[in-house]
C-alpha cells in the first residue's frame, strides 16, 4: 500500500504539471498543494497506522469485477456524444463562459477571473465545498478522536531534549522556515484576487506549516500552540463567516450571497464579499487539515502506547 500511496502522490504532481501546461495555474496550485502534498501525507499517516500490505481476499471478487466493467463501459459509451476536446463550438464555450470572460471585470472588478467565478458567480458551489470540508473534519473527529490529557511542560521538555540531537539540522532549518511558510500562506490568501491563490490553497499551506512543526517537535508541543478547542472553533467560524455573508446580503435586500448589496458601490460590495468568504474558506480549510492530522497522529500514538503496554 505504500507504493500505491506514492503513486497517488506522483499522479497528483503530474496532474499539477499538466494543469500548468493548460494555463490553469489556480487549479495546478490547488492540485499540487492538496493532491501531492497534504493528501499524500495523510495517506502515509494512515498507512503507518494500518500496515503496509493489505490482507488478500479469500475469494475472487468476480461479481464486483463484472459490475465495474459494465459501469465503466456504460460511462465510456456516454462520452461518445460529447464534443471533441477543445472544439470551439462546444456548449461550454458558448453559453456561460463568454459572459464570465467579458463581463467579469465590469461586474466584479477583480483581475483574477478564476476567483471571481469561484467566489461570486458560483458562490453557492464554493459554499457547498466549504461545508463538505467541514463535514469531513467533523467525521474524522467523530470517528478518530482520542481524549488526551495534555502533557505537562516538563514532559514535553524531556521529549524535546531527547530528540534534539537526532534531528538538529532539520529543527534549525524548519524553525527558520516556518514563519516564511505561514507568511506565504497569508500572501496566497489575500493575493487571490490578483494572481493564482485564494482560500483553499492558503489554508492548505498554513496547515502544512503547522503539520511540519508537529512532525519535528512532537504532537504535544504542537498541541500547546494550536489547542484543540481553538482549532475546532475556528473550523466552524469559517463556515459561519461564509453563511453570514450570505445572510447579511439577504438582510440588505439582495438574494443569498449577492455581494453587490453589501456596500454602497456594487463593485466595492463584491470586493468585500469576496474578501470575507475567502477568509472563511481559508480558516475552515486550515483548521480542518490540522484537525485531521492531529486526530490521525493522536490515534497512532494511542495505538503504539497500547502496543507498548501489552508487550
Amino acid at each position: 500500500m505504500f507504493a500505491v500511496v506514492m503513486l497517488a502522490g506522483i499522479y497528483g504532481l503530474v496532474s499539477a504539471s499538466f494543469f500548468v501546461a493548460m494555463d490553469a495555474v489556480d487549479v495546478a496550485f490547488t492540485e499540487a498543494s492538496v493532491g501531492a502534498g497534504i493528501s499524500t501525507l495523510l495517506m502515509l499517516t494512515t498507512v503507518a497506522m494500518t500496515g503496509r500490505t493489505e490482507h488478500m481476499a479469500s475469494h475472487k471478487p468476480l461479481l464486483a469485477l463484472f459490475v465495474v466493467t459494465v459501469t465503466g463501459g456504460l460511462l465510456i459509451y456516454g462520452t461518445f456524444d460529447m464534443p471533441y476536446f477543445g472544439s470551439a463550438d462546444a456548449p461550454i464555450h458558448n453559453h456561460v463562459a463568454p459572459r464570465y470572460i467579458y463581463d467579469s471585470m465590469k461586474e466584479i472588478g477583480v483581475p483574477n477571473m478564476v476567483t471571481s467565478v469561484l467566489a461570486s458567480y458560483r458562490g453557492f458551489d464554493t459554499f457547498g465545498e466549504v461545508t463538505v470540508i467541514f463535514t469531513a473534519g467533523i467525521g474524522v473527529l467523530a470517528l478518530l478522536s482520542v481524549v488526551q490529557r495534555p502533557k505537562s511542560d516538563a514532559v514535553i521538555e524531556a521529549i524535546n531534549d531527547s530528540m534534539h540531537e537526532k534531528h538538529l539540522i532539520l529543527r534549525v532549518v524548519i524553525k527558520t522556515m516556518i514563519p516564511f511558510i505561514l507568511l506565504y500562506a497569508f500572501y496566497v490568501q489575500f493575493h487571490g484576487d490578483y494572481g493564482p491563490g485564494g482560500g483553499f490553497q492558503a489554508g492548505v499551506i498554513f496547515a502544512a506549516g503547522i503539520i511540519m512543526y508537529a512532525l519535528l517537535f512532537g504532537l504535544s508541543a504542537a498541541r500547546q500552540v494550536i489547542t484543540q478547542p481553538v482549532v475546532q472553533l475556528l473550523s466552524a467560524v469559517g463556515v459561519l463567516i461564509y453563511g453570514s455573508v450570505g445572510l447579511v446580503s439577504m438582510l440588505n435586500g439582495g438574494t443569498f450571497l449577492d455581494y453587490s448589496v453589501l456596500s454602497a458601490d456594487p463593485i466595492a460590495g463584491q470586493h468585500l464579499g469576496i474578501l470575507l468568504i475567502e477568509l472563511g474558506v481559508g480558516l475552515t480549510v486550515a483548521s480542518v487539515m490540522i484537525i485531521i492530522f492531529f486526530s490521525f497522529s493522536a490515534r497512532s500514538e494511542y495505538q503504539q502506547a497500547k502496543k507498548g503496554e501489552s508487550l
Partner: protein
Amino acid sequence: MEIVLSLLSGLFLLFGSFLCLSGGVGILRFPDFYTRMHAAGVTDTLAAAMILIGLMLQNPEMLVIIKLMMILLMTLFISPAASHALGQAAVLNNLLPLVDLNMNHLAKNTTAGDESSKS
C-alpha cells in the same frame, strides 16, 4: 548588454536542464539508495537554482527578479534539508550504504609476492 544577458541566461538554463536530465538518469541507474538520493538532491537543489538564475537574468522587471530571488533562497534552504531528512531516515532505519569490501585492486601497489598470493 542585452546579448550578454541573453547568452548567460541561456547558458544557465541549459546547464540546469542538463542537471535535471542527469539527475533523472541517475535516479534510474545508480546502484544504491544513497547514490540515488544524491542524484535526486542534485536535481532538487542545483538544477532548480540554475534554472532560477537563468530566468532571473532574462527578466527586465525588478519585482519579478526579487520574487525569483526569494524562491531561490527558499530552495537553497529547503531542498538540502529535504535530502538530509531522507538520508537520516535511511540511516536511522539501518539501511547501510553499499560499500565495496573487495580490496584486491588496492594490492597492486604492494610487492609482487603479496599480489601472487592473493590471486
